[in-house]
């Protein structure tokens, strides 16, 4: 019997009825930190994949209070909660390939939460990292801080049910709007506020910089059934730049020069249908409204996810998914060709798909865009404390200029000549060793062609999200 359910299955839900010795398996099964995905306010993480899920910079205690997070050393410190995911990594190049920026790195992703009052938390996320040991001793070490003030209160009780208020700002951490047609898994700063009553939520969100140096995103959404259905209105503001002006404004922003703002208005709706605990279907539509013109975009995604596919044999986790996207020409938020950029460029981005709305907005002015993506991840325990893991993403894209008689040509990063069709295949496959079988700390060696791209500093906006050269990676991770 199909049912509507709150987004994302949780591994803790699977584990709870099991015996304590099975908890060991639960710790290492599936993605790290995946258990509470979807339960954190304004959670932009993807519950329907086997990618690792970073912690969110709010409701930290809720995230690590679950039994499968019992290894966290900082969860019983009174009004303070501390957690950290740390990792080091190195790369080896294959013939004719180049190392990515993070080829000799450390990243300590630390989370600090102070419960000031009941319902008021101050959250601090410190990313301490050094992207490359090749730069010189600690030469490019850096620390990036994000502070999120989170207010969450029951403001009234109506007919026996609470009306709850959430407000968080300015660190929104990972944000996804709807099912990801407009913004998917993008770390943002701004604020979000919501009122929730019996699973019906009215949410307002403002993001100060999403895909471009000059954009602001304002959203208002109304959802029901714990987010399973949602209506979304978006105002996407950008500077009204003439062609060719973007780089000069970006590099030499002159406070004396004021550029008029221009808004793109979107109205849309999304739905997520969980057919059973392993299968879900999600759809989203959005229209850019510019009377009398309406530009449309739509996505659909199907996911089949097993965190323990063969419980009687050995642990096998499997996710297979498919997504379709269509963005009509002119749907994108700006009417000037300016390549979107993302930041921060951290290795945690590798726990997201290459298929992402940001990839469609560069040339939206000129082309209709279709894509089909097949995603798959798998974790298989081979021996005790040793597992084989892999992920793959096949992305087929087509760009077409629907304007009659138009012969416009453009070259798009990682796509090539448009109009046209292109496909890309990303993979990562390797072995993971967990020296302490009951703890998630691990070492991995793998081959892949999906590595986060970055300029010198992780906070410099970069139009490339990933480097695609095949590399050998070695990583060691601890979860504290």
């Amino acid at each position, binding site marked *: 019997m199909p049912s509507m359910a709150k987004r994302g299955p949780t591994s803790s839900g699977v584990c709870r009825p099991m015996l304590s010795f099975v908890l060991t398996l639960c710790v290492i099964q599936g993605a790290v930190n995946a258990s509470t995905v979807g339960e954190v306010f304004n959670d932009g993480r993807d519950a329907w994949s086997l990618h690792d899920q970073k912690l969110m910079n709010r409701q930290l205690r809720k995230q690590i209070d679950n039994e499968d997070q019992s290894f966290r050393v900082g969860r019983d410190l009174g009004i303070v909660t501390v957690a950290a995911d740390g990792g080091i990594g190195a790369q080896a190049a294959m013939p004719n390939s180049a190392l990515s920026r993070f080829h000799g790195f450390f990243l300590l992703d630390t989370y600090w939460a102070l419960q000031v009052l009941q319902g008021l938390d101050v959250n601090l996320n410190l990313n301490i990292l050094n992207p490359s040991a090749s730069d010189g001793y600690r030469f490019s070490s850096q620390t990036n801080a994000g502070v999120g003030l989170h207010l969450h209160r029951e403001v009234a009780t109506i007919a026996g049910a609470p009306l709850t208020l959430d407000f968080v700002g300015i660190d929104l951490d990972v944000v996804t709007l709807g099912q990801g047609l407009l913004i998917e898994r993008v770390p943002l700063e701004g604020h979000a506020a919501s009122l929730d009553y019996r699973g019906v939520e009215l949410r307002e969100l403002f993001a100060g910089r999403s895909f471009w140096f000059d954009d602001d995103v304002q959203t208002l959404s109304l959802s029901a059934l714990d987010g399973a259905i949602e209506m979304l209105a978006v105002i996407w503001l950008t500077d009204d730049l003439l*062609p*060719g002006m973007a780089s000069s404004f970006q590099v030499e922003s002159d406070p004396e020069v004021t550029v008029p703002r221009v808004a793109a208005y979107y109205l849309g709706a999304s739905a997520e249908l969980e057919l059973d605990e392993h299968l879900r279907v999600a759809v989203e539509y959005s229209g850019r409204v510019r009377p009398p013109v309406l530009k449309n975009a739509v996505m659909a995604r199907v996911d089949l996810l097993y965190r323990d596919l063969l419980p009687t044999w050995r642990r096998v986790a499997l996710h297979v998914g498919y997504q379709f996207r269509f963005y009509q020409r002119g749907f994108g938020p700006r009417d000037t*060709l300016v390549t979107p950029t993302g930041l921060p460029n951290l290795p945690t981005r590798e726990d997201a798909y290459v298929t992402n709305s940001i990839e469609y907005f560069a040339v939206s*002015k000129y082309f209709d865009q279709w894509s089909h993506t097949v995603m798959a991840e798998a974790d298989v325990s081979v021996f005790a404390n040793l597992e084989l893991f892999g992920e793959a993403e096949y992305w087929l894209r087509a760009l077409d200029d629907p304007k009659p008689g138009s*012969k*416009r*040509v453009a*070259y*798009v990063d990682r796509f090539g000549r448009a109009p046209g069709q292109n496909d890309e295949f990303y993979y990562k496959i390797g072995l993971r060793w967990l020296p302490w079988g009951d703890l998630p700390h691990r070492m991995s060696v793998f081959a892949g062609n999906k590595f986060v791209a970055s300029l010198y500093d992780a906070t410099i906006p970069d139009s490339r999200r990933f480097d695609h050269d095949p590399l050998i990676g070695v990583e060691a991770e601890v979860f504290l």
Partner: protein
Amino acid sequence: MRVVAVAAVSTVVALGGLSTACAVTEQEHMVGSSVEVRWSIPEDMRLTVPLRWAVVWPARVAEAAGAEGAEGEGAEDESIGFALVADGLVISEVFDIPLSVPDASLWTAAMPVESLLLGGKLTTVCYRPRILLYLDHDHSGGFAPSFFGGAGEDQVVAIDGDGGSICFLPDLESALQGGGLEFTDTYYAMTDRRFTPFVRVIAYGADLLMDREVSPLELRLADSPVPGMDLACMRAVYGSRSPSIFATSRVSAFVDTPLETGTFCGPIFPECQAISFEAMDIPDVSSLDNGTDLRVAQCRTAERVEVLVVQQARLECEDCSCFTVAHSDVYFAEPSALPSWWPCGDTVLVCESDLPLYTLDPQCLQEPASE
């Protein structure tokens, strides 16, 4: 495409190699284009023979003698010629000139090789065909000039310049690829969304910048050697392109007999003579501007004298250099005994100015602002 050249363009050297040929095959689907041209003519210039337009590619060509069985003999066999790719009769003030994608053998020999700024420090190779108007003196219906070794009589009277011209991008695909999306967006904004290798450009220092096609390409006729020289000299004409009324002048002074010569003559006027204005030949004070010759007259008044200044300038060109030769005649007359032909206040404007009496005041040369 009809091809005319001093030496047959079929012998155009520097075919450019396979790489350039490959670049062009990528553009097979490219459309040609057209450029809208508007021409104007100075008041003092008269057309006595048919006015025609032409699109011409100056190019390196092999000498006919050297071309026969002398393949690869080197630069000694090359000279500058041109290929005529389009030609027609001018029948209206505004008209379209078609632009067709040239063969690789043509543009790889075209001169000069120029660079178009894509953005930042990125540039791409660009060639500017010459768009010109000429007087068909030999009534042949085809462009046959006297330069580039030719013996024709046709006179180039207008040609595109650095303020507005058309550039051909032989490898537009690479330019779009290398220039990024910002250049792509600029390119389509400038070409009115057409995927064409021809773009309007203006000169920016040693480089070229794309320019938006919002108005016709302006060509102003001039009865001057400059347009032809501009073509023959590959745009590298030094000095003036039109006569300047303010060029350094040789000044001759004429003092009417009622006046004392010594009052006016002096070191300023090495040539100064007393003469009866009534008896002398009446000076020509009519305005003249035909692109080569320029004449301006202006009157000034002082307490006991009226002054007529007639300045004439002529553009002279030689070996890709042009300069103005200017000469002023200054006439001093007694206000109470003006000669009968005295034009001041009649056909010549009297200018109130604090500048020296023997000079032209540019303020009085400007067109009066319209109300």
